[in-house]
């Protein structure tokens, strides 16, 4: 069996950005929080909007909508708090979403080399084929890995987070 056709059953959180749905491995999701104040200060990382305060932690807000659907979310914004693994540690990042998230169980088909770096795999749900997001490639961080390395990240690696 080719690795690209291997499937794994696991839980995922479905999130909505505009009209499109995406999935993130449930193991990396901490919580979904109501809209809250975004604190902004000068910086030069374009993908980061600011930070929110959550449970005593300062969490960067990373607008992934622009990269995924071509425009930022301006309304109905909730924050999906996810764990982002870096070389030496794991940190929370807040992803603005439209709020109606759903927990599902599905089998994921790992991404192929032809897929974009932010795609960890694919799953089928309610007649839709949905991208499973690779947060390590989607959100900024120091020493961003090359696209080929990102593409090789598998669901198993994501689940380790």
């Amino acid at each position, binding site marked *: 069996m080719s690795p690209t056709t291997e499937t794994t059953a696991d839980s995922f959180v479905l999130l909505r950005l505009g009209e499109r749905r995406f999935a993130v491995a449930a193991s990396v999701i901490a919580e979904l929080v109501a809209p809250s104040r975004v*604190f902004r*200060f*000068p*910086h*030069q*990382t374009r*993908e*980061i909007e600011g*930070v929110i*305060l959550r449970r*005593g*932690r*300062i*969490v*960067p807000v*990373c607008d992934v909508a622009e990269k995924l659907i071509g425009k930022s979310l301006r309304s109905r914004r909730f924050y999906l708090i996810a764990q*982002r693994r*870096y070389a*030496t*540690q*794991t*940190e929370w*990042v807040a992803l603005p979403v439209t709020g109606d998230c759903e927990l599902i169980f599905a089998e994921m088909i790992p991404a192929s080399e032809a897929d974009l770096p932010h795609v960890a795999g694919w799953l089928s749900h309610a007649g839709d084929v949905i991208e499973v997001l690779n947060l390590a490639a989607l*959100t*900024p*961080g*120091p020493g*961003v890995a090359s696209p080929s390395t990102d593409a090789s990240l598998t669901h198993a690696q994501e689940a380790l987070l």
Partner: protein
Amino acid sequence: MRLPSPPKPPSLRAEQIILFRISGQIFAVSSASVKEVRSVDTLAGAAKEISNSAIRKVRHVVQRGEHSLYVVNGAVHFGLPPSPAALVFVLRRTRTALLVDGIEKMTSMTRLQALPQAFNNEERGWYRGLTAIDQAVIPVVKPEGFLTPDELLLLDSSQQASSAAMADLIAQLPADDLASIVGTEDDAAGLRSDSATLGNRSDAPPFGFKSVGLDAASAQTTHGEQDSSSKIISTFQPILTIDASDLATAASVASRISSVSTIAKPTSDDSSDFRFVQFDSDESTSYIQ
């Protein structure tokens, strides 16, 4: 039988910080990092304009003994809209004098969170981290982050070249001409115009004690922090010559100011003994011990 007493939670140590404004944005800096707080007017007399500065955020230099102190425009550094600066922070153990709009208040922080790694650009050099004060997140600036070693090298080279050119020019002048350009009223007038440029304030009084601007600094503080703010205004050195009225003003000012070292920390001048201990690397949070 006595039960063992529960372990004591580690006591958190507070670090005193100054919250200041640049172009409407609030920042924090450790008060131990601030050597002096001066009004731009007092600095204007001592500042020399750098013509054609290679570093856009640095337009003036102040000579302090053997060292040049570069005046950094905080708004330009952070990419904020320009705003009229009223105060200058002379930052300890750096060669930076930072132009700021005003002091918001003095307070203390007990927790400093490392800048999240999602921030992956120049800001990593700007900030020590983030802290939450009154349910707001404030970036804590890194004093040495305002001028990189490369920028300092560039500025020093430019200064040396400028000084060498001036020395050559002076060497070529006849003795009479030389006397006419040193220590005259014209010289003072030039410094006055530099002062206005430095702070974008056309109403800047000429020199030293007359322009200390304590009232402005005090008015910018809030929440009953007048006591603190009165302590942060540094000892002002007389700039150029002062007359009798200057001295009277100086006496009045001196009664309202004290050295910044009294508020920085109860420790000695340069010894910042705060230690940051990583308790939980996953949370990337530093606590002040």
